[in-house]
């Protein structure tokens, strides 16, 4: 690097600011042509552009404040040189240098500092304008000028204080742009001109105001001319839709919409000539132009011109189709792009127009047959899918436009939404008076109509591309309109998705699936053997593909993966939005379908998500996307609430677990998330009720509705025993418990009798009995006594012959205090021991009680002779508990009772 040798000091690193002026100078010297030097190679220019962008060589921005003046000046002067050179190039007679200069000027507009832009943009503007007025010879120069001007205006649009200046500058551009559009013959130039027009409308809409009609005429005649490619047509359509913004009033928008719809309808008359009754067209027309009103002037305003075209050139169907498509795109844009004021959408005419197209399936009505030739019919049928696609797009736009969930307001009132997300005022505001309250979700009154149209079309529609769009429409409807919509659409989605997805399963069904229609079933079988055998390594790589191919052989109809994905997504949305609603009829079959699909799609391993650079676009990752869609739908099916536990939870978990191991893929990420969400299903949590007295983990859970009524006493008991009110902050509870005390004891007196009367025959197993007994447990006023009594009852059941004696004890125990009870420790202990040993089948709760009561009594009495029996009981109880630990609520009971044990002596000693 010779350049560096001159320089005495070295640079710190590649981020050193001092490096930048230096680099720029080198670029100017070495890579930029001047008057004498020709442009060596266009590659050099690419290098210049990328270097400038990478290092921000034109930015003149310093990281730290205190940079020495010398550096600032040197950078400044280098950029001066750069700008001079670029301007010089742009004035060159050689078109290649001129082109390079213009392009680099555009780059400068984008990259330079605000101060520099501010001071010199008008000079640059004049320079660029000189190539459009009069137009330069070279096509490249014209296009480059348009693009650079567009960049200049874009930058200018960022300066809010330069709005007026920008408007007046761009006003000068309109004429030359329209001239280019009307007179030039190259599509590239039109493209540049339309892009520039688009920029002007976006940033300085007011500048078009005076040329509105001419602009409309130029753009619309281009659309109708049939000389543009599809991409260009789309741009033109967008431009046309944005035009009303330059006026920004309700009337312009409505008029544009009306003109376009009328034109579409007229064109459709030509296309569908002889294929449908006149009534349909007349109906749309009547909605568009109400009887008694004047029709709008034709689009573009030049009737004569269009008439001339129509007469002289035999308009081909192709041309009609393309212009109808473009006009529909334009409609979509009108409906979805922002507009400064609220506008009346002719919803009925839009819907009937869409219906008119969608219901045209190429069949001839009987009455029309004599007038149609097969040739005509063929032509229409070949064009219909395009028209349908665009009509569906229009329908999507209608739904989107009508159900925008943003809060709107009219200017002048400025209802600033505080916490409503990204809403704000339109950039340009015009004064406008009418009511301000703009409603959203306006589709509601027409929702039924939309749904009817969609479902009707769903039944007819067979093309994958169209079906994908339909699925997306149904998803939009479901999400934006919620449950009510789910009720309407559920069956259609389920039916259609099942049709589209069942083929996957049929392919998958293995050799046993017998399809009587299949001619090539033999070959299919053979192939499938390869595909499904897990040994063959070559086939293994591409198993899913093989499977699909096989399916194609068999079904004679390939359902593309993208359509299956759309169907899966629709099902996912349906399950999310309306999982339980009237789902009894379809839910189980859909759950089954989804697990099958997920299993099938993932059985061959996980698709490689990396894009193969040798294949166009993302054709490889579509398999991964399909797997992802299948897994997502599966998750929705597992999570969507149903009356029953998800039947395929185990399989689903297995899939997700396997998927999680594919580190670094989207699938792994999703599977990890799915496992997290499913975890709640596996371990149903009792969510901590922080703000309330926590649920006492006792038997009430098992008892359904009977127990809770009596359960409160348990809390009371815990409070007394534990002496830890902070755990139960419900002050009012404690207070209110007291007055009820006496009532409780009354109740207690009665209880044993009832209990006894209801006692089932002795043959009943203790384990079964246990819950019922425990129902009575909370009823007692004193916890210790109550527990004992429970145990007594258990003993009663275990040893029926002791019944009378035991019962007496129970009764006495109820009214007794701890101390009274302590008078007969021996007998109780004995019984307890027997109870524990003699009832292996007792539920763990009973064991708990046995042990607890034992210990507590032991401590209360301080009696030595009891200790002999307790150890034999406790281990048993613990053992008995173990199998229950798997139960969902055993944790809680384990936790609680030790507490009681610990606290008990304290409370009693107090």
């Amino acid at each position, binding site marked *: 690097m010779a350049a560096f040798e001159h320089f005495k000091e070295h640079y710190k690193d590649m981020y050193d600011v001092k490096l930048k002026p230096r680099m720029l100078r080198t670029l100017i010297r070495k890579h930029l042509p001047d008057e004498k030097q020709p442009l060596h190679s266009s590659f050099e220019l690419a290098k210049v552009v990328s270097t400038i962008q990478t290092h921000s060589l034109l930015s003149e921005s310093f990281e730290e404040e205190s940079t020495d003046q010398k550096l600032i000046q040197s950078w400044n002067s280098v950029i001066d040189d750069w700008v001079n050179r670029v301007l010089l190039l742009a004035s060159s007679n050689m078109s290649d240098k001129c082109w390079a200069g213009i392009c680099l000027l555009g780059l400068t507009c*984008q990259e330079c500092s605000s101060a520099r832009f501010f001071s010199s943009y008008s000079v640059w503007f004049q320079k660029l304008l000189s190539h459009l007025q009069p137009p330069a010879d070279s096509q490249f120069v014209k296009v480059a000028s348009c693009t650079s001007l567009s960049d200049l205006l874009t930058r200018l649009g960022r300066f809010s204080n330069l709005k007026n200046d920008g408007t007046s500058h761009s006003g000068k551009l309109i004429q030359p742009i329209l001239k280019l559009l009307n007179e030039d013959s190259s599509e590239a130039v039109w493209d540049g001109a339309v892009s520039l027009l688009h920029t002007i409308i976006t940033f300085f809409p007011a500048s078009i105001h005076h040329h509105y009609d001419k602009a409309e005429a130029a753009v619309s005649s281009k659309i109708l001319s049939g000389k543009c490619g599809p991409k260009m047509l789309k741009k033109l359509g967008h431009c046309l839709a944005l035009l009303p913004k330059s006026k920004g009033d309700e009337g312009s928008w409505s008029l544009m919409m009306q003109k376009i719809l009328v034109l579409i309808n007229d064109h459709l008359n030509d296309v569908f000539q002889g294929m449908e009754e006149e009534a349909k067209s007349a109906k749309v027309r009547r909605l568009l132009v109400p009887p008694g009103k004047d029709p709008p002037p034709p689009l573009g305003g030049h009737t004569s011109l269009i008439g001339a075209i129509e007469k002289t050139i035999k308009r081909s169907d192709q041309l009609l189709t393309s212009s109808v498509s473009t006009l529909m795109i334009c409609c979509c844009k009108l409906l979805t792009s*922002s507009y400064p004021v609220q506008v009346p*959408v002719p919803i*009925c005419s839009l819907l009937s127009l869409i219906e008119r197209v969608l219901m045209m399936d190429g069949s001839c009505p009987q009455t029309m047959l004599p007038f149609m030739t097969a040739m005509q019919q063929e032509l229409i049928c070949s064009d219909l899918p395009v028209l349908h696609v665009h009509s569906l797009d229009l329908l999507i736009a209608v739904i989107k436009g009508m159900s925008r969930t943003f809060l709107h307001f009219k200017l002048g009132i400025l209802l600033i939404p*505080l916490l409503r997300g*990204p809403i704000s005022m339109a950039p340009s505001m015009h004064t406008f008076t009418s009511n301000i309250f703009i409603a959203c979700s306006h589709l509601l009154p027409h929702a039924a109509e939309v749904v009817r149209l969609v479902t009707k079309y769903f039944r007819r529609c067979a093309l994958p591309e169209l079906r994908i769009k339909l699925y997306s429409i149904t998803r939009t409807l479901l999400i934006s309109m919620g449950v009510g919509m789910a009720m309407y659409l559920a069956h259609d989605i389920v039916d259609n998705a099942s049709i589209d997805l069942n083929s996957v399963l049929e392919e998958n069904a293995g050799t046993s699936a017998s399809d009587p229609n299949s001619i090539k079933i033999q070959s299919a079988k053979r192939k499938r053997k390869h595909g499904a055998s897990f040994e063959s390594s070559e086939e293994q790589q591409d198993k899913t593909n093989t499977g699909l191919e096989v399916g194609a052989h068999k079904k004679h109809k390939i359902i593309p993966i993208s359509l299956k994905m759309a169907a899966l997504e629709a099902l996912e949305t349906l399950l999310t939005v309306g999982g339980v609603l009237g789902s009894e009829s379809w839910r189980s079959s859909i759950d089954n379908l989804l697990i099958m699909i997920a299993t099938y799609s993932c059985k061959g391993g996980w698709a490689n998500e990396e894009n193969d650079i040798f294949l166009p676009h993302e054709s490889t990752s579509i398999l991964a996307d399909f797997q992802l869609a299948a897994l997502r739908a599966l998750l929705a099916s597992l999570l969507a609430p149903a009356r029953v536990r998800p039947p395929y939870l185990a399989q689903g978990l297995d899939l997700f677990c396997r998927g999680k191991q594919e580190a670094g893929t989207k699938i792994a990420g999703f599977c990890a998330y799915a496992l997290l969400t499913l975890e709640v299903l596996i371990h149903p949590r009792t969510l901590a009720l922080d703000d309330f007295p926590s649920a006492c983990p006792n038997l009430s859970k098992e008892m359904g509705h009977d127990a809770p009524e009596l359960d409160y006493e348990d809390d009371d008991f815990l409070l007394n025993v534990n002496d830890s009110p902070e755990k139960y902050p419900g*002050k009012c*509870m404690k207070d209110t418990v007291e007055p009820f005390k006496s009532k409780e004891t009354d109740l207690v007196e009665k209880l044993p009798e009832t209990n006894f009367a209801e006692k089932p025959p002795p043959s009943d197993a203790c384990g079964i009995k246990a819950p019922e007994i425990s129902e009575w447990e909370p009823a007692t006023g004193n916890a210790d006594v109550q527990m004992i009594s429970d145990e007594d009852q258990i003993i009663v059941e275990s040893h029926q012959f002791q019944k009378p004696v035991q019962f007496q004890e129970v009764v006495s125990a109820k009214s007794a205090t701890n101390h009274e009870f302590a008078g007969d420790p021996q007998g109780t202990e004995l019984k307890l021991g027997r109870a524990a040993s003699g009832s292996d089948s007792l539920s763990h709760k009973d064991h708990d009680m046995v042990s607890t009561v034992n210990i507590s009594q032991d401590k209360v009495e301080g009696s030595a002779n009891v200790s002999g029996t307790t150890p034999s009981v406790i281990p048993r109880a613990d053992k008995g508990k173990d199998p229950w630990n798997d139960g969902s609520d055993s944790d809680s009971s384990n936790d609680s009772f030790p507490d009681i044990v610990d606290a008990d002596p304290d409370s009693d000693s107090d």
Partner: protein
Amino acid sequence: MEVVIASSSDDAGIGCWDLRTGAEKLRYKTCASPPHGLVSVGGRFLASSQLREPSASSGSVLFWSWSKPQPEVKSFPAEPIKPLAANSLGTYIVGGGSSGNIYLWEVATGRLLKKWKAHLRGVTCLVFSEDDSLLISGSEDGCIRVWSLFRIFDDVQSQQASHLYEHSITEHSLPVTDIVTGYGGCNAILVSASKDRTCKVWSLSEGRLLRNIVFPSEIDVIALDPGEHVFYAGSRDGNIYIVALHAESKPSKVFGMHIIGLLSDHSKPVTCLAYSKEGNSLLSGSEDGMVKVWDLKTQNIIRMFRHAKGPVNNILIVKPQSSPNLSKRHGSLLPPPLEKYANSSDKETDNKAVIALQATISSTPEPFYYSSQLINDHIKELQQQGSAAAEIDVERLKLDCKRSMQMLQQWKKMYDNLHEFCVDELLDGHQVPGSEGNSA
């Protein structure tokens, strides 16, 4: 800024306080609202139905903008309206008439879009489901009905169906006093309160009874905790009961099944409740004219607002969405009054829906510059001129050339033949016109 709005059945106006600071704001005048008769329409303005003399033939609904104390728009529906509800975006207002009719108006135009016979007796409460697609109404005869707005608007289906509603729940024996719905679309729950001293929890999608709670006293109002582990029931005995919704929660014998606590400070019946997400607090209004703010964590009262001597019967917590500083030259800030009758003659407006296409981003669009892209495109084009595309062109030209050569040969041959023919003819001495020879 969240404000508390409270109204009363006495003509005590609508009180408005800043929830955080407790400062009283503007008091909106002339309002005597029935229970559930006060609603904030999309946060943009307040609407309230008015108690009328029993003899009055028409109802009355008033609108207040945030900035003015006087009602700005007065509507007079065909019959007295008691409960009023608006969907979350404020597109529609529904009102329940004392004859059992429900009226649905479009706010932007004031048009009465639908009116239908919902109940045999007066409608007592109206509420939208969380996703605004269902409407739930309660009536004086204890009946609760769930309406799908889609079905209401679907003329074709509604003519075919025997009834319009999705569910009709008739398990309350006395008038329904309040209804709330929870989150979760079709999985949402519905809690209803009635004068029969019960609250019932329903599944919204199936209309199935999930839980029945019996209270010691009549419940006038309920509020649902957003987490839905409990709901709060304001009772005529002045208590606010806390009722568990979780299956695992701990019920109490003291108050009744599922009731796990109470907040008690009001001396008179609790008539309205509102939950505030800011600070997890519950607001309660009572017939003693007080509005109390409870901290739900500590269950203490943290603030009190005195509304009036008369009973408070509506509380709302609203985030007003307006800026009062703008000029008034645009006239009224409020929509037109609600129409009395459905105007079916106006077919043209029926076909149109007024929407606003608001920019969805706040600032000017993110700038996108094209120059560098263009340079690259053009460079690519320049590069390609010498490459594959040209090769194909050359091939094509070669082919053309070959074809032309062949053609030339053919013409030449033809000419030769003709020449020969002519010479022969001449030599034979016959005069033949050239054209004939050409066509031969």
